[in-house]
């Protein structure tokens, strides 16, 4: 892979210094956003303008139409775009994850009594995009709780920023969405946090940094500088001591346009849950750039499970094509951060199930509720 060796080289002058990076105003995008006010882009010789998009379809179209050079994406999106599922087919790369965890199931306060998936039959849920961890985790949670996500509930796509207003308008019973919109519903006093996504799969990938293969190969120096800036910012964000400052940096209208208080609650992990409890979960959202291939394979198994892709899937090949695990490792190491040695690992879920990336097809077939 020609992209693997370059990470160790000294960075050359960026081919393109003025870059546009798209984002959705959510806390997952923290590294990408704060890199601007906190000067990480500048540090690597880049002049980046961050552009807010209204929803993931818009992000996808911005990326495909080359209106942005690189974007904040959901971890399944580069896979889907590369395969041409729910998209025009275009090879995309995902050199780094931005955050792990950081999602939650928020329900309207009128559902205070709801404890488990079985109480949720007939609910109207929203997720930010079909090709999102939010969608797959919600489906996993519901299905493992005995609720068929296609038959027993409605799951619709809604841009994250519009979820709160729709919940308040009773247009939704709940959503599995990104923060700050879970905490915002609590803050506004009509929603409560039913479950953190961490409590489905601790350490699950959420959002990522991605760009087209064309951009990466055409502008290797820019790409490298960008990756370094983001890895740097991600590592900075993962330090819990920085979290309060970060909350202040990303709150203004140009970025998330949210009250600082809400962002602090999320980033520090000390937050009211809307039912009168104050919880302390420091890794409610965490930041780790390392893109495990096994994560990609899990995502592909879920796409297969829910019928988004049909036929045989070469899980491993696609994962390797899109998730630039080794590049990320090299960059992390070059910058003096610790990085895992392996590209894959088994993942353990909160319900006790274990995902073995070597046997994805068996994993798909192990589910009772599936669309294959």
């Amino acid at each position, binding site marked *: 892979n020609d992209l693997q060796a370059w990470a160790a080289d000294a960075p050359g002058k960026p081919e393109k210094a003025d870059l546009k990076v798209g984002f959705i105003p959510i806390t997952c995008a923290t590294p990408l956003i704060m890199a601007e006010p906190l000067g990480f882009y500048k540090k690597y010789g880049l002049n980046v303008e961050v552009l807010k998009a209204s929803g993931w379809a818009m992000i996808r179209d911005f990326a495909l139409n080359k209106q942005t050079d690189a974007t904040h994406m959901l971890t399944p999106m580069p896979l889907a775009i590369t395969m041409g599922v729910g998209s025009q087919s275009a090879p995309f790369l995902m050199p780094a994850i931005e955050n792990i965890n950081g999602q939650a199931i928020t329900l309207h306060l009128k559902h205070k009594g709801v404890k488990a998936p079985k109480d949720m039959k007939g609910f109207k849920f929203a997720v930010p995009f079909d090709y999102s961890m939010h969608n797959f985790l919600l489906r996993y949670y519901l299905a493992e709780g005995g609720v068929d996500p296609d038959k027993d509930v409605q799951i619709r796509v809604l841009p994250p920023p519009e979820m709160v207003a729709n919940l308040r*308008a009773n247009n939704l019973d709940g959503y599995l969405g990104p923060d700050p919109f879970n905490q915002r519903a609590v803050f506004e006093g009509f929603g409560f946090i039913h479950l953190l996504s961490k409590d489905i799969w601790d350490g699950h990938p959420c959002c990522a940094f991605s760009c087209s293969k064309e951009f990466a190969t055409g502008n290797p120096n820019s790409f490298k500088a960008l990756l370094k800036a983001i890895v740097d910012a991600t590592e900075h964000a993962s330090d819990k001591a920085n979290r309060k400052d970060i909350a202040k940096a990303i709150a203004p209208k140009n970025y998330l346009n949210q009250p600082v208080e809400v962002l602090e609650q999320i980033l520090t992990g000390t937050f009211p849950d809307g039912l009168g409890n104050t919880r302390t979960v420091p890794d409610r959202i965490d930041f780790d750039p390392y893109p495990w291939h096994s994560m990609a394979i899990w995502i592909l198994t879920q796409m297969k499970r829910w019928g988004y892709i049909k036929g045989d899937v070469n899980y491993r090949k696609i994962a390797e094509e899109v998730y630039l695990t080794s590049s990320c490792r090299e960059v992390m190491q070059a910058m003096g951060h610790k990085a895992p040695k392996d590209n894959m690992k088994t993942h353990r879920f909160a319900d006790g199930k274990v995902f073995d990336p070597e046997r994805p097809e068996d994993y798909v077939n192990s589910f009772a509720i599936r669309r294959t």
Partner: protein
Amino acid sequence: MTLAVPNETFRAVALSALLLFAALFVWQLASTPSGGGRTQGLPGPAAVATVTWEMLSEPFYDRGPNDKGIGFQVLSSLGRVAIGYSLASVVAIFLGVILGLNPILLKAANPYIQILKPISPLAWMPLFLYTIKDATGAMILVIFMSTLWPTLANTAFGVSAIKRDYLNVAALLQLSWWGRFFKVILPAAAPTIVAGLRISIGSAWVAVVAAEMLVGGTGIGYFVWNEWNNLSLTRVMFAILVIGVVGLILDAGFTRLARAIAYIE
């Protein structure tokens, strides 16, 4: 001695077909063939026709809450339009008659009407969602706001422009207020009112699609939104066609009504 007049209708139909073929041809050229690879280009007429056939052959399927036939989607949009539109029409005609009969009141209310009229119905959406706390209600109110003004303005104008003669005859015959209203004012202003209603149904149809794209759940607008999320251009194009045809039918209904109540002075 008399020239055989070439049949105009026939020539128009022929030309119409020609235009259609030309358009389809250009479209076909512009669309990239969706070859062996997965890359979808702009879908061509054939692809859209196939989807149309598929969707229309089973318009009322229901495969769970996330996947319903196009018939259901259109009906749900039409249902919203029906409610918002009828409410707005009743209010608009009522207010319009009052304003039309009172020039000073009309003059007084006019600045507010002029400010409220150009507000994009979608801009109301956040406000309504927030205050009504009901998405369907908010959508209906958005439709209400988008249809109120054309009917109101036309009714007020139609009533205020009723020829003095007709009102004079009503006065000479000493008709009661209701007699005057039903026998003179309403029929005299009817063509203008219906013209307003016709513009309004157009705005309503535009507004419902936009509103459903934003808060949806069901409806043809939501369908477009959903297929866009999936980047299923073929279905988006099919949906655009459906929107156009339904809009055409709604409009045609009002054209008929307009013809029925029209009079020649």
